[in-house]
């Protein structure tokens, strides 16, 4: 028996306990009701809308949306054929502008404190210089996060990208303890994100964020299908992020296109914490001949961002 109360907490309670309707019907029903109905069979189904109202929806319309979503989730597991995506980050150019963070948050409807690409201030040793380290998900070739997922919600595709299927994730957070680079974030509360009415869920874009599931950088796999660069790469004003394909041996930051193998050789590219054996797909170019010095990264920061870098955390070089 469904209640007419538009009590938000009650809706969430029912949603989580699982009255058997599933998230699809709750999200899609309010959208589909009254709109395009595909193949009306005449059979109606009573569902609970997001506002807590009971409506009658054509059963076939619901089925269609669910079928499309499942199809999209299947293709997302296959990946783009004959590609192996890599990212190269030139630490000499990073000045902590944080445009990559903002572009990513905007594109994926993330709350402002969720950072799928995160900027660290790192100082490796007492007599080495500090530098800014942008850290997206490394899409490792030996991903520990994928190995430990009990339900296969996170998977590695042939083109190298590791995705999370928000419709399968049970929120056990084992992948978060498995990742040595702390690249994953968890949606601890309802992100309150609105999506268009007939939105089909696609793990390659991974919106809307789902409460109780894990999210991470997806190398903007949705953009890659259209031969466009990921959002962070496009947004970086310094051109520090390069993206490309290992098979083609080319990387670009939008303005410059370079040969990957040459860049690695000439600038001694390396991977972070290589000894862990995770084989990341993100390479770094050491911060030599820096375009911007470290302190320019501290300028113009908000108070809370300044606070976070005051203590460089466990890797404090002084110790």
């Amino acid at each position, binding site marked *: 028996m469904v209640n007419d109360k538009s009590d938000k907490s009650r809706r969430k309670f029912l949603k989580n306990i699982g009255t058997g309707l599933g998230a699809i019907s709750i999200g899609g029903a309010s959208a589909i009701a009254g709109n395009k109905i595909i193949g009306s069979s005449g059979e109606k189904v009573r569902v609970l809308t997001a506002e807590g109202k009971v409506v009658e929806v054509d059963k076939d319309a619901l089925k269609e949306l669910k079928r499309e979503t499942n199809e999209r989730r299947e293709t997302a597991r296959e990946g783009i054929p004959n590609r192996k995506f890599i990212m190269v980050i030139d630490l000499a150019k990073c000045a902590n502008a944080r445009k990559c963070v903002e572009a990513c948050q905007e594109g994926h409807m993330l709350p402002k404190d969720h950072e799928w690409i995160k900027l660290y201030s790192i100082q490796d040793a007492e007599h080495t210089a500090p530098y800014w380290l942008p850290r997206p998900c490394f899409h490792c070739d030996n991903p520990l996060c994928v190995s430990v997922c009990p339900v296969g919600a996170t998977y590695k595709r042939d083109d190298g990208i590791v995705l999370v299927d928000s419709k399968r994730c049970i929120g056990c957070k084992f992948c978060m303890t498995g990742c040595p680079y702390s690249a994953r974030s968890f949606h601890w509360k309802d992100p309150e994100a609105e999506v268009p009415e007939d939105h089909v869920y696609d793990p390659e874009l991974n919106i809307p964020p789902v409460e109780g599931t894990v999210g991470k950088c997806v190398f903007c796999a949705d953009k*890659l299908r259209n031969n466009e660069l990921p959002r962070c790469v*496009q947004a970086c004003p*310094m051109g520090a992020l390069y993206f490309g394909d290992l098979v083609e041996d080319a990387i670009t930051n939008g303005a410059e296109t370079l040969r990957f193998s040459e860049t690695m050789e000439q600038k001694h590219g390396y991977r972070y914490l290589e000894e862990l054996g995770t084989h990341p797909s993100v390479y770094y170019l050491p911060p030599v001949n820096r375009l911007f010095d470290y302190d320019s990264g501290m300028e113009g920061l908000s108070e809370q961002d300044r606070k976070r870098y005051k203590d460089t955390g466990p890797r404090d070089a002084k110790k």
Partner: protein
Amino acid sequence: MKIKKYNKFLVSIILTVFYLYPLTAQEKGEPEKMSPYMEFKYLKNTEEQRILDAKIFLAGELGIIPVEGLPVRFYTNMEEPELLGEAVTDAHGIARLIIPDDLILPVDEDNNWWFYAEFEGNEQYEMTMEEISLMDVNLSMSLEETEDGKMIYLEAYTMKNGEKVPVSDEDIFIFVPRMFSLLQVAEGYFIDGEAEVEFPDNVPGDGAGNLTVIARFNDHWQFANVEKRIETTWGVPSSHDVAESHRALWTQIAPRWMIVTLSIMLVGVWGHYLYAIISMIRIKRIEKKKNK
């Protein structure tokens, strides 16, 4: 070709060329008029089509935001501007006009063409315009695979007063198309209308080694963008295939030894449980027999 100084300055500041999605309708509809920028480019492609691209965009916080749906008018002839045509900017903010092949464009005293693109402005956006002037060049390319390597032979000439003038003292670049952009692989130099470039041996192509070779004057001060493309098999065959039978900790199917070990252990343990349950059934049976 003379490009307005501030246009180049703008482009070099905003280093990205690719686009974010356009703002939603709510964000566009602000009461204050916005002033967009225009980037005006000319390209002569491999089929000798002359293409004018006018891109209108806003310089936002997070980079370039292209503006869709704005009408752009293209003119030529600095003395007496003639309308060439009109186009509307697409989702990428680019309004494209292809100049008909048979249309002969007027040249000025420097033997240059002059083009002018203008967006008049509307309630939301201010007016913006750009002009470029460039010289037409005829480029031809042929390929030959010799013992010394893969050679590209290029010829370029301009026409002045009906006479061929060979191009000299100019750089030309060889590109190959990659997924997001063009990769420069070699460079040539025109002397007396001819250039010879050796194509490197190590450029990855597709699975069969197919590769499109592009010779291009790239953002040239005089010739703008002129290119010639030829499909070849000069690429190194490369592909990325993960074997279906590959099994690891992170693949969908577990390694064989894991499945076997687990099965043996489970069968062993639950077999003993079965024995215990059977014992319980036997105890019950004995009672039944006794009671008979």
